[in-house]
């Protein structure tokens, strides 16, 4: 199952000591089953946007609708993989993945085995998180988000801390799983190649307060060839426009 997502955000400001406007006006429509990537510089409010969509923070001006539901608090139809693994240190790898399930019944153990295999975690099923490397912990976190296959999956730089080879393999595997289930996905990243490789549409976000500057459709059949001419061309075009629009340096 998958659901469309509509965002009509007017403003998100944190009022701690000083007011800090994290996000500005953002309108976006994500179709059911679509894979959308948000590209943007560090600190532009990408993670904040995901928090709002997941329902963890409902203190904002605007409206977010997932399927038929106006988002006010976390619901089971929306899953999220955080930027850091956020594993429970007292649960084993297997138990951490099982924690992602609504109800931990016997039926689901096959599902967990499948994910352990897919993400190459089998030998570590009974290890505790502090025995894992950073990349392994990230994979467990991904497995926890995938085990339930929600209608909308939010991914916050899920491959950020992985080595190049593992990253590529995981991007391929994740894409297989997600397109098979036709899950709607919104992924945040600062890796242009990753965005072009995985998504149907790429949105470029400005510096704080975050706004959508540009939208690129990626019309290439999946799985994509990273060295193909049009792949590299799009990658180069996005990089060029990021440099122009964000003038980071």
């Amino acid at each position: 199952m998958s659901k469309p997502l509509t965002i009509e955000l007017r403003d998100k400001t944190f009022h701690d000591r000083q007011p800090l406007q994290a996000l500005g006006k953002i309108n976006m429509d994500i179709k059911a089953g679509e894979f959308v990537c948000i590209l943007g510089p560090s600190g532009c409010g990408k993670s904040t946007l995901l928090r709002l969509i997941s329902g963890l923070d409902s203190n904002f001006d605007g409206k977010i609708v997932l399927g038929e539901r106006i988002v006010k608090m976390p619901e089971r139809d929306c899953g999220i993989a955080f930027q850091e693994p956020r594993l429970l240190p007292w649960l084993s790898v297997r138990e951490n993945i099982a924690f992602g399930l609504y109800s931990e019944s016997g039926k689901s153990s096959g599902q967990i085995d499948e994910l352990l295999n897919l993400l190459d975690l089998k030998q570590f099923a009974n290890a505790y998180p502090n025995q894992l490397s950073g990349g392994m912990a990230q994979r467990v976190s991904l497995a926890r988000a995938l085990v339930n296959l929600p209608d909308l999956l939010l991914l916050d730089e899920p491959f950020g801390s992985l080595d190049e080879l593992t990253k590529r393999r995981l991007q391929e595997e994740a894409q297989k799983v997600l397109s098979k289930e036709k899950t709607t996905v919104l992924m945040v990243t600062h890796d242009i190649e990753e965005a072009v490789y995985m998504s149907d549409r790429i949105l470029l976000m400005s510096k704080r307060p975050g706004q959508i500057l540009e939208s690129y459709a990626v019309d290439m059949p999946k799985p994509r060839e990273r060295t193909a001419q049009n792949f590299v061309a799009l990658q180069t075009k996005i990089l060029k426009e990021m440099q122009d629009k964000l003038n980071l340096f």
Partner: protein
Amino acid sequence: MSTISAKQKIILPLIIPVILLVAWEWSVRSGLLPNTLIASPSQVVRDFFDLAISGELLVHSLVSLYRLVLGFAVGTLIGLSLGVIVGTSKFAEKLFAPTIQFLAPIPPIAWIPLLIILLGIGEASKIGLIIIASFVVVYLNTVQGIRSTDQKLVDVAHVLRKPNKELIKKVLLPSATPHIFTGMRIALGLSWILLIAAEVIASSKGLGWLIWDSRNFSRPDDLFVGIITIGILGKLSDMVLVAIEKELTKWRTVFQGK
């Protein structure tokens, strides 16, 4: 980094006790310490076996342990339950915390006269005292433990729509376990102190009474047997807690000293 050998591991902890024992034995035998007031280690050992064989020591120990374990268990249970409730709910915090915070700093000994008036000089007042003391310490540490849980982990449970029961069982309690056990160990030590104090003040059985009574009857050997038995039981009860904590927190990698 230096490591200690297996031989050193056994010998090192014994050096100071052996020196102290030899000095003690020698002081009493040579007459440096009056034998009517202080018993020598050899006399204490002989008396220890006498009292152990006659069953007297066992009776006193069991009476004391009964009071300690019952009071500590009930106090810990109440402290843990209320600590979880106050730790998880702002409403409960506003309701309970101010009252407890006002009562907590009162030294438990100050309750003894009141407890004796209310509950008499029997078992109830002694057990009640231990309940109050362990409750306060375990409660404070449980609240502290729950409130030091990483918000990021709580968020994980929230986005997964875990019910409150799961949140407490899988996230808050495991995270608070090291704090809770610190509280329990302090509470257990405090319980021993208060138990002996209460037994000295008013009782006719128990290890505290054994010590006090032997003073009255000039039996310095009984006095030391009582003290040593309390030391052994105190250490054993602490070891039980440490073993349970180790089992529950085996997921942690902590610095062990070098």
